[in-house]
């Protein structure tokens, strides 16, 4: 399982990259491996607001649809349009294949995110 030290993580297998007031969200290598080949990613709309814990992305593998939860509250300011035509990037390169950028409405929520070490223990 590949993990990047500089990222933050959520128990529900999302990764978070914080840049100022913005946060990039994707799923971990562990999660993509468990999902199997992703064939469709349903992304949120730019401008939508999400609360921490909301289901905001749906990933469809050949077998099933899986929900992805927003790790932080805020407004969606950008989505990764590339994934619409190339959902396989989520399997090939999960830490590059971000789904959306959230402009955080409550940056304190980042305190509850996990370090790569903490997350690794959960996956064991």
């Amino acid at each position: 399982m590949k993990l990047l030290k500089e990222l933050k993580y959520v128990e529900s297998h999302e990764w978070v990259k914080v840049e100022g007031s913005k946060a990039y969200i994707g799923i971990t290598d562990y999660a993509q491996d468990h999902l199997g080949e992703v064939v469709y990613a349903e992304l949120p709309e730019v401008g939508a607001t999400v609360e921490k814990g909301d289901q905001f992305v749906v990933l469809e593998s050949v077998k099933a649809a899986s929900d992805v939860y927003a790790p932080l509250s805020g407004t969606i300011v950008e989505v990764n349009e590339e994934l619409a035509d190339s959902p396989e990037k989520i399997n090939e390169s999960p830490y590059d294949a971000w789904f959306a950028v959230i402009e955080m409405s409550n940056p304190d929520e980042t305190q509850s995110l996990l370090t790569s070490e903490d997350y690794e223990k959960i996956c064991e």
Partner: protein
Amino acid sequence: MKTTPLYEKHLELKGKIIDFGGWNLPVEYSGIILEHEAVRSKAGLFDVSHMGEITVKGEDAEKYLQMIVTNDISVLADNQIAYTTMCYEDGGVVDDLLVYKYSSTDYLLVVNASNTEKDYEWLNNNALGNIKIKNVSLDYAQLALQGPEAQAILQKLVNENLDEIEFYHFKSDVNVGGISALLSRTGYTGEDGFELYFASSEGPKMWDMLLEAGKENGIVPVGLGARDTLRFEAALPLYGHEIDKDVTPLEAGLGFCVKLSKNNFIGRNTLSEQKASGLKRKLVGFEMLGRGIPRNRYEVHSDGKKIGYVTTGSYSPTLKKNIGLALVDAEYAKEKTPIEIVIRNKNVKAEVIKKPFYTKKYKK
């Protein structure tokens, strides 16, 4: 949880194990799409030992089975196989199964794993005449070897000429690398191939032999995930999806195995009436025009109302499109009819298309 004789092999090969109707079985090894493509282009090996096997023997075996199943098995030659449904009085399907005929007094039924006990009870409750019904599921391991290279691979392990086993025929007591097996030219992928039945204790040895023999042919082990996408592209029905106790074989497009002309059988009256008065629902194929993947039991809409439901839907690895099968009101069954699939509360455009989605490559 039940395991097949191949369980340790699945773990060794790093199969992703899931609970499949109470059985620990691999959903995939190398990836569903990869495995799917290997079966279409080369060969795949499936552990289907969870399937149920029931023997029916005795002087009234033929008469009894004619009454139990919808297809006409009196026309079978010895060593021939029939695909059939077995119905309730109201025409709903108890199960779909294969009937292997050794002789008119000796048959082997191969049934769906999750239905084995229900079927066994149904068979016993409707028993007639001089017959013996026995559930022998645990005695057998079953492997399916499927794909254009299947015959070449199996031929390496047997002396007899496999060309002599025709489509939907079988040969018993064949020596496969030292293991006695029944070989049938059957399968559920839309490809040419064989199913092998043999003593469950020989499971791991047979599995290893076939994988080794097929190495240079590009064989891969295949899990339940690709088994489902393969049978789905070929529009082969799956119990609990296209057929179940609330769907008749006629509605599911399985009229070819409902022989209303033969003598009485369970469900005949209802099925005759249904045929005479015209089908109200039909199973259709469809293609998504909008984005999204249809799944089992999603609603199908048209003209702002519900007209049916999805029975199976998936990304098709061969066609590289999102397609599905749906049971819809008959008036919407024509090709090119615009329909909508409700995906997470959104109506997404789709269109009725011809099925099967993939032309079967059986060796006739």
